[in-house]
């Protein structure tokens, strides 16, 4: 990852797409969110969702996986150019997470992240805090997920 000083409000990352299969939806739900509408086709059809849909946690952690993969690709590019990279994380939390619409079987979600705020850390002089808005949009162009996540990012001056 770039250093804190290199990150600007408005920077936007295209993280990639993920398609949620019925098997993946049920496997995740069995482990972490075993509500009938995420586990069982018939129960989901009878629920207010109308059909099997992914746990909201499943759609959120998929953003995280794609974000980590994106950062790794950026780090590899930077290292190949002989640049050093700053340490990212951990995050301190998130807020205003909204699941706007269910993610149904075989829906494809396109994930992005956008920097919305940067500020120095009050507790760590070698770190800054970066807030990003994570978003997911389905194949019909409908938002399905958004949240604001804040994480520590290393400052360039920490290695000066």
């Amino acid at each position, binding site marked *: 990852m770039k250093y804190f000083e290199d990150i600007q409000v408005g920077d936007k990352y295209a993280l990639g797409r993920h398609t949620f299969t019925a098997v993946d939806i049920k496997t995740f739900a069995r482990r972490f969110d*075993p*509500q009938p509408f995420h586990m069982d086709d018939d129960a989901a059809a009878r629920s207010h969702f109308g059909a099997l849909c992914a746990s909201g*946690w499943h759609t959120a952690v998929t953003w995280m996986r794609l974000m980590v993969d994106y950062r790794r690709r950026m780090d590899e590019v930077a290292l190949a150019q002989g640049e050093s990279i700053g340490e990212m994380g951990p995050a301190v939390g998130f807020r205003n*997470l909204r699941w706007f619409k269910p993610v149904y079987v075989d829906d494809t979600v396109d994930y992005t992240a956008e920097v919305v705020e940067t500020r120095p850390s009050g507790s760590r002089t070698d770190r800054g805090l970066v807030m990003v808005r994570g978003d997911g949009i389905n194949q019909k162009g409908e938002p399905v997920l958004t949240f604001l996540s804040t994480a520590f990012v290393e400052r360039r001056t920490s290695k000066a």
Partner: protein
Amino acid sequence: MFAGMPKLCWEDFKPGAVTEYGPRRVTREEIVAFAAEFDPQPMHLDEIAASTTLLGGLGASGWHMCCLLMRMISDGYLLDTSSMGAPGVEEVRWLAPLRPGEEIRIRTTVMETRASKSRPGMGLTKFLFEMLDSAGTSLMTMTTTQMLGRRYPEGPR
């Protein structure tokens, strides 16, 4: 109440009610397996690499903590309710690392409750969830509003 109806409906959650679920031990294997699948950062995967990060050693992904909490409240009460899901999560704070071998509990507090204006069969209940370690230290807080079916749509609560 008749057969097949969930035990707990929106009417049963009163502001101020506190309940605890657990304990549940979290193993190194599950921390690493979750991270490998969903959050493959060195601080969640490898003790040596984690030791130089701000986590100061191997710790669970914060998203794993959220998923563990979800599973524990599901087994604790949610599967016995008329749950209709949740529209989102107001806030999650990761306060301290969840280390391998820790025994966690979830303390649940009902914060407020209100009827849905748009759906007469539904009520909204705001919860504060705290993940505690065996010493009682708060590792994470989560504030979220769950949608629950009403036992008496349009009736008194």
